[in-house]
């Protein structure tokens, strides 16, 4: 997809030139991208053979497509009819279709980019089985992931990349969590997750900053939610993908207005009919998908940074003069955002710096309640640590923080308290002293209490 600037690629000892996806495929190298590349309006068989449909007398031979597709699906152990439309499959099954498609071109090297990022636990397990099976049958697999548990489980060998260069390799016996993190961070692990034990469980008395009673989100209108959040508290929401975590945040923020129930800010009931209502109540949301929901990619750092606060800072509808330059300069230094200048278009920044711009946009409003949805998804370890530092700092200043995370380490490391969700319900609340991977997973898979 992108030709190399220099260096060489060798396949079975012979140097190969790969200048396009087609040549890569011809050499037996297939890539399964993080975002799936399937035509969801077509059926499974047509997707597998897209662009190289078997023909008979010039017309597509549907019978053969489906006969061959069945064989491909069997190889990955996917039991669905090849005539099912792709859009009717779960994400996990769509992923299997991608793999089946790659295998159908006789891929010998399969590159997978964060394949489990949107799968449920069960689907991920199934995927891992398929991967092991393929590797046993001689397919080489390059598995790109920042989920260290998976890497530990699957990899025969690990190469850690940091800032675009090899940071080190680990052989079979050396793949441990600590070794991986050390190579990734380039510094000691102990300073990584730093929510100090002392700052936890000091939940002050009095009226909670945010209280939710019988809240029903449009995604799970039959389930009622209740929880509260106090000033200076950091509360994580854990659960599997699809458990309704994001919807809690978007409902609080007025993006998907509540189907029922009450939201109280400092004891006062508020209606969150649109994000503007939530902002006026002192809420801010760093959304899940920063490119689609967090940023105007083609606009400058400065313009993104002030987008939410313009309304408060306006001069009778006019842009607030020097405010824009001042606030972006102060956020760039406070969040150590790496950008040549604040006129740079956000799309040229790295993921971590983009995320910091989103954060800066909300900090400019000095929110009392900060909602974060997967605050460190897809960003490098250094930026992660900085985002944790900022969250700490804000909590220290009395901001209440509610965050959704799919990374167990993050939930365990940062939460004063964790809410665990399963199928739209809060199945349990774990104070810091009871937080453990096992406890969270039990609740996340539906075992109450």
């Amino acid at each position: 997809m992108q030709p190399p600037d220099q260096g060489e690629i060798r396949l079975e000892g012979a140097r190969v030139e790969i200048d396009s996806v087609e040549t890569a495929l011809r050499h037996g190298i297939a890539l399964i991208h993080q975002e799936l590349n399937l035509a969801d309006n077509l059926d499974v068989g047509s997707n597998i053979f897209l662009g190289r449909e078997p023909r008979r007398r010039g017309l597509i031979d549907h019978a053969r497509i489906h006969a061959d597709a069945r064989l491909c699906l069997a190889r990955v152990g996917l039991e669905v009819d090849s005539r099912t439309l792709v859009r009717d499959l779960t994400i996990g099954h769509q992923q299997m279709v991608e793999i089946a498609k790659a295998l159908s071109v006789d891929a010998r090297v399969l590159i997978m980019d964060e394949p489990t990022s949107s799968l449920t636990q069960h689907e991920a397990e199934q995927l891992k089985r398929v991967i092991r099976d393929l590797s046993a049958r001689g397919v080489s697999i390059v598995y790109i992931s920042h989920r260290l548990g998976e890497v530990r489980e699957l990899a025969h060998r690990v190469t850690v990349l940091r800032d675009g260069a090899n940071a080190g390799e680990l052989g079979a016996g050396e793949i441990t969590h600590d070794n991986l993190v050390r190579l990734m961070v380039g510094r000691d692990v102990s300073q990584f997750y730093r929510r100090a034990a002392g700052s936890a469980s000091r939940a002050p008395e009095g009226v909670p900053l945010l209280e939710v009673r019988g809240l029903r989100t449009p995604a799970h209108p039959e389930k009622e939610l209740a929880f509260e959040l106090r000033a200076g508290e950091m509360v994580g929401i854990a659960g599997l993908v699809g458990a309704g975590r994001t919807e809690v945040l978007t409902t609080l923020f007025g993006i998907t207005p509540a189907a029922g129930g009450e939201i109280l800010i400092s004891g006062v009931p508020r209606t969150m009919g649109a994000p503007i209502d939530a902002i006026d109540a002192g809420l801010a949301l760093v959304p899940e998908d920063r490119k689609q929901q967090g940023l105007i990619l083609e606009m400058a750092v400065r313009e993104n940074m002030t987008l939410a606060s313009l309304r408060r800072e306006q001069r009778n509808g006019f842009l607030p003069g020097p405010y824009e330059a001042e606030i972006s300069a102060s956020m760039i230094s406070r969040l150590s955002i790496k950008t040549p200048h604040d006129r740079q278009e956000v799309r040229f920044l790295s993921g971590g710096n983009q995320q910091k711009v989103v954060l800066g946009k909300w900090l400019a409003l000095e929110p009392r309640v900060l909602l974060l949805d997967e605050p460190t998804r897809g960003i490098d370890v250094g930026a992660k640590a900085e985002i944790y530092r900022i969250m700490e700092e804000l909590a220290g200043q009395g901001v209440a923080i509610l965050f959704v995370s799919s990374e167990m380490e993050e939930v365990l490391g940062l939460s004063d308290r964790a809410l665990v969700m399963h199928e739209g319900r809060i199945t349990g609340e774990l104070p810091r002293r009871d937080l453990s991977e096992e406890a969270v997973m039990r609740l996340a898979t539906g075992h109450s209490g």
Partner: protein
Amino acid sequence: MKKLLGIFGLLLVVCVATALMSDKFLTPFNIENLLRRTALFGVLSIGVAFVIITSGIDLSIGSVVCLIGVGLPWLLTSVKVPLALGLLIAAGVSVAIGCAHGLLITRLRIQPFVVTLCGLLIYRGVTRGFTRDQTMGFGNDFKELRWLATSRIPVPGIEGFGIPFPCIILLVVAVAAAIFLNQTIYGRYLLALGRNEDAARYSGIRTERMIVLAYVICALLSGLGGMLFVLDVNSAQPADFGNFYELYAIAAAVLGGCSLRGGQGTITGVILGTALMQVLRTMITLVDALPKNIEYAIIGAVILGGVVADELVKRFVARRKAARQLLG
């Protein structure tokens, strides 16, 4: 900025070429005519630019020009409503049309293309209906009102040349539009939501209201344009008055740097784009070597050329930027 220079350069080239091919081009009469037409069409182009910036489109402009351009003289001369009331109704109808477009697009989520295509058909049909296809005009009355479009401000020293008054109107509209787009938070909101409506909404912008506002601005300026056109020519035929004007307006906006993908555009660019369109039309009329009936083909080819050139330049710049970042 580079884009503005590019379109300005193209405008100059076409002007010089026309002047070389026809000695009638640089006459005071022709220049004055050109300015007047640019001013009238410029009002429409600025209107549609706002809609295009939200990544929408308005195909009903020509029909709104017809509705107001025919409806206003009809109200004043046939129905005989007082002047102030007539103007108020014209403005009210324009705003109502913009609101209807905006609400259908934001509330019912119907594509702008479909909504305004239906508008194109409906307003022309309605106009032809209530006038029974009769040509409308002011005759010898309403001299003061017609003065808005027909008067000219003589420039001392140049015999037979004056600046048409519509140029002053365009200037006022353009300055107001440019201030709105670049100096107010609402302009920023429009540019932001044109790029990424989701992210704008997540930032607390009431995107639906802003989109409705864009369609209202467009319809209101179409109405204003319709009024100025009929004041200028004093005779409007419901069947063809304003035909294709939406395409001239859209083409001028695109030529002037608005992207149909949304979020991009400058008022100066739109005016330069409008001027270029009008110079091209003049060129076809004045240069004897060019057959008159291929007007559309020439305009189409120039727009296509401009857009292709812009895209190629953009790619070249992006590649150079990428290369620089690699080195730096």
